[in-house]
């Protein structure tokens, strides 16, 4: 699983369109299940199929109007200018103005409608993705990197949005224009058409040759850029260590190697990509020359008129643009389909199973918790909990103690149904937790997690997250109880201070205080503290603990902590090692028993106390 993930992220790192300039001339990424994905995209677009039909009608109208322009130029020259029919010319000019206005109007309207349609579709896709996130089990988030998921939610959706916005109508437009132009050219002069189209295969061959090289060198460039960016990110993130160990010169040397590689592949990639422009230009000019010379020759033979040359030249100039556009749109569409595919992949991940129809709502929770013969493994064959049984009376405070990886947090994960047990049962007030509605179960549990998460919102709103309808006074009371009030008031705007992204402006300890306040406000029947005070300095912790004692009164409470001073006051200490409960009892009982706990205790205390 994880290996696949890694190759996945690696592939994505090199994927086009990562930066703002992506999509320019990047290696093309081919979707794996193109047809299926397009079908699903169509599912979104179908909601707007009538508008879609209108857009296509408009494309026909505007393309038709634009196509008739060059023809009319020729007509004007032949029928009016050369014979000197000025009133006729004026009429024609008026007609052309009308036609062009119609064309421009049609083009504007189709773009206008398409923009709305595309954005609505993208909004719907975003919404479905977001809903998916809400419904995915915690296991998903534990096994997938956030970066990868995030890139699906932002970059990939953006890709789809861009293509919907521009490419769909443009591609249709290009098709019609190419088809129409060639038709018009054939009508005007089959001979000249054949001569003009001679350059098309040349163009195709050159483009193909160049494109292959370009793709190769761009691939190289992207690879080197990825490596270089990786190095830069790593070095600058660890800049303090680099300095302390005086590795600056070594880093610069490493950097220059990558930098030179990038430069050299960049030169080649840019040259090949840049050659396309002049090449297209020269083919255009060649065409121009062929039409001019051959047209002149034919005109002298009286096979065509001067007006036809004029029309023809404009048409042949027009042909290059949609051809180029189609080629570049093809790449963009491909990478968008690949992006859409990744979005759908995410939507298809297994969701948290729905609540059972017979699932109950808990009200008035007493807080009796019972684990019976619980077995659990995150990955098959690596059992984390083995045959764990535990009876907790209402109102009891249980401390879970044991070395890292013993399975303490796993018990919490199971209680909250972040993960489901594989055998055995867990009951609350006699109800199997799998028969309780998930939201009802989690309402009954108040959890302060090991890594405190805060939103980039005001302090007040962050605390209020515990109970959305709490009043300002209640929020502040909860903060006081958690000993957070003092430091909050010292913040620049007190409770209304908006926290920066990832709340980097607060210390780990302060963040823990806020999340304790949040749990206090939630006022749950069962309280779970997972290393809730590990980063609070010990003197503050003593204060919080006093508040906690108040809070824990009458509630069932689970406490996980490394500091033995935090857990000594629990009604019962449960010692876990290697996924099994090895000891149970009060602090004093366990010390007297002289087992695992007393050993732990000694390593921390006895040395100090003696």
């Amino acid at each position, binding site marked *: 699983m994880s290996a696949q993930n890694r190759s996945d992220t690696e592939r994505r790192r090199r994927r086009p369109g990562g930066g703002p300039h992506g999509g320019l001339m990047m290696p093309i990424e081919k979707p794996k299940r193109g047809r299926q994905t397009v079908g699903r995209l169509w599912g979104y677009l179908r909601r707007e199929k009538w508008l879609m039909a209108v857009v296509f009608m408009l494309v026909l109208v505007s393309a038709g109007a634009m196509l008739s322009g060059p023809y009319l130029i020729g007509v*004007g020259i032949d029928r009016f200018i050369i014979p*000197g029919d000025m009133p006729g010319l004026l009429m024609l000019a008026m007609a052309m103005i009308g036609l062009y206005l119609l064309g421009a109007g049609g083009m504007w309207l189709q773009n*206008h409608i398409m923009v709305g349609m*595309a954005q609505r579709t993208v909004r719907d896709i975003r*919404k479905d993705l*977001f809903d998916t996130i809400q419904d995915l089990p915690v296991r998903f988030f534990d096994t997938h990197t956030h970066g990868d998921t995030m890139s699906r939610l932002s970059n990939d959706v953006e890709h789809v949005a861009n293509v919907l916005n521009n490419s769909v109508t443009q591609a249709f437009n290009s098709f019609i224009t190419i088809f129409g132009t060639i038709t018009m050219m054939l009508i005007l002069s089959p001979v000249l058409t054949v001569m003009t189209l001679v350059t098309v295969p040349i163009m195709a061959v050159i483009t193909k040759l160049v494109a292959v090289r370009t793709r190769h060198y761009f691939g190289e460039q992207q690879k080197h850029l990825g490596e270089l960016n990786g190095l830069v990110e790593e070095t600058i993130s660890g800049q303090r260590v680099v300095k*302390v160990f005086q590795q600056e010169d070594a880093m610069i040397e490493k950097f220059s190697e990558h930098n030179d590689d990038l430069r050299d592949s960049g030169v080649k990639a840019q*040259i090949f990509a840049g050659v396309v422009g002049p090449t297209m230009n020269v083919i255009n*000019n060649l065409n121009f020359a062929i039409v001019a010379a051959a047209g002149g020759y034919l*005109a002298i033979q009286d096979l065509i008129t001067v007006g036809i040359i004029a029309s023809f030249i404009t048409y042949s100039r027009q042909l290059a643009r949609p051809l180029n556009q189609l080629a570049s749109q093809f790449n963009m569409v491909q990478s968008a389909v690949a992006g859409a595919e990744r979005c759908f992949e995410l939507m298809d991940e297994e969701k948290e199973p729905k609540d059972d129809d017979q699932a109950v709502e808990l009200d008035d929770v007493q807080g009796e918790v019972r684990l019976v013969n619980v077995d659990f493994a995150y990955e098959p064959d690596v059992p984390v909990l083995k045959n764990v049984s535990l009876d907790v009376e209402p109102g009891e405070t249980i401390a879970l103690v044991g070395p890292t990886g013993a399975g303490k947090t796993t018990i919490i994960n199971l209680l909250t149904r972040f993960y489901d047990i594989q055998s055995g049962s867990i009951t609350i007030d006699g109800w199997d937790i799998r028969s309780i509605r998930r939201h009802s179960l989690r309402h009954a549990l108040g959890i302060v997690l090991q890594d405190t998460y805060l939103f980039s919102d005001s302090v007040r709103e962050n605390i209020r997250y515990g109970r959305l309808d709490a009043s300002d006074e209640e929020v502040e009371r909860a903060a006081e109880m958690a000993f957070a009030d003092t430091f909050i008031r010292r913040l620049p705007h007190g409770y209304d201070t908006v926290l920066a992204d990832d709340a980097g402006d607060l210390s780990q300890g302060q963040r823990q205080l806020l999340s304790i306040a949040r749990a206090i406000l939630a006022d749950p029947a069962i309280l779970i503290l997972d290393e809730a005070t590990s980063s609070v300095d010990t003197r503050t912790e003593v204060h919080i603990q006093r508040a906690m004692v108040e809070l824990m009164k009458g509630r069932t409470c689970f406490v996980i902590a490394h500091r033995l001073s935090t857990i000594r006051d629990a009604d019962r200490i449960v010692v876990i090692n290697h996924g099994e409960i090895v000891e149970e009892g009060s602090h004093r009982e366990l010390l007297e028993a002289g087992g695992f706990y007393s050993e732990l205790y000694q390593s921390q205390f006895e040395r100090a106390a003696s």
Partner: protein
Amino acid sequence: MLKIMRFLRPHWKAVLLAPLLMIAEVIADLYQPTLLASIVDVGVAAEDIPYILRTGAVMIGVALLGMAGGVGCTVAASMASQHFGADLRAALFEKVQSFSFANLDQYKTSSLITRVTNDVTQVQNLVLMGLRMMVRAPLLSLGGIVMAIRINPQLSMIFLVSIPVLAVIMALLVKRGFRLFTLVQEKLDRVNNVMRENLSGIRLIKAFVRSDHERKRFSVSNDDLMDMSVQAGRLMALAMPLIMLIMNLSIVGILYFGGVQVDRGTMMVGEIMAFVNYMIHILGSLMMVAFMFIMISRAQASGERIQEVLATEVDLHDEPEAEDIPVEEGRVEFENVHFSYPQASGEPVLQDISFTAEPGEMVGILGGTGSGKSTLVSLMLRLYDPDSGRILMDGRDIRHITLDALRRSVSIVLQDAVLFSGTIDENIRWGRPDAGTEQVVEAADHAQADHFIQSFPHGYDSVLGQRAVNLSGGQKQRVSIARGLIKDAPVLILDDSTSAVDLGTESRIQEALRRREPQATTFVIAQRITSVMDADTILVLDEGRIAASGTHDRLLAESSIYQDIYRSQMGEEAV
């Protein structure tokens, strides 16, 4: 922005060559319609077939010449821009390497990374485009106008209408569009932010059953984004039809007024055709100019961010009298040291710090969060300079030792165990690049890391991913301790570097430290009293001052603040 362009100077040949070659291409493009006109007006009119064929051949020749110019320009522009980019990137990277800690504090890490990577790419693209398009577009439109006027000054009056109209429309669109797209970007950031928060905070959201709340919150920003995107998109939807309309109306105008002139005999039919072609060239180039303005304004912001880094003054240098002689014994003295962070307001972080650590002694440093522990040790490496007071090593003011020699003499294990991609062996060797395998293993062994390293299939040659994701927090800390130990410096600092290591392992590490020869003067910052109680001296910091110092026994007997900490960790009955 202009200052950054000095990096183009070494590549002046290519920079000069690119526009010159581009001129060739532009001339070729501009010459074609005139040749066409002469085919129609001279060749066809006089029924002179050889003339037509000759002119056709000239046109092909001109086209090929133009291509040579275009390709040459591309080559030169590519060379210039990529070399420019590479030089700029290297200059930035070297600059960052020379930064002091205070300099680093000025910038967010992510922002520095963006500057070295994305911003350079932006500017580099601008140079590439600039050397091609910025020459081509103005030349083509200017040349087109000149050629058109040469054919028929009167008919050129049409440009007097269509060019200003086009310019005004483009200017309005670009201006309004720029604002709208900035807003779209803001809304997009908002949407992405909610997404990110939901990814990182998913446990919390599930635990507090806030999915519906989050859905509502997301739907608001999602709708906002849609509305703004639609607004911006619809504005841009105007652009293409309007431009096409202006172009086409001008063509109609040329056709009509040209026709009138042909009727009067002041103009020829072929010239009308040439005129129409020049028109297309001119208006097309003007569009390109508008596009370039957008690019320039984007690159401008990048350029400024880059320049800011390059212009940052490195605030820590070797003093002129500094000697390149490392510390040998490791006696450390602080004399009335005061310190406050450059950016921070008011409150000094350290006040009046004085103490002496004899060679080989172990000094424990305790104190609450924010009491100044990490700051104190960072002064020893001259990561920052004190505001007043002196720090002496072996009796020498550390400002009289070169930074290089000083940092060779002091080894620090930082709180954050940052490892780099590469093998474990390479990571440990950072401390001393010339170390032998035995020394690596010995250092790892003392850091209690040898055991788990050996358990990996590739042992010391196991490759760590970026940020060492494949090691646990405690394992990373132990590797980083080994990296600090192998340096064998006379002064060793452990800055809360065993926080993720369990108690038993921690005491074994300390045991190993005491056995290491020669004995380094060791500073240990810790949260747990047990980590420092065996120290020769314990400094208790409180709000930037040394509140108490002495051995564990003495402090326990005399210092109330120490007793407080002790009690909070050991419980009431322990005292």
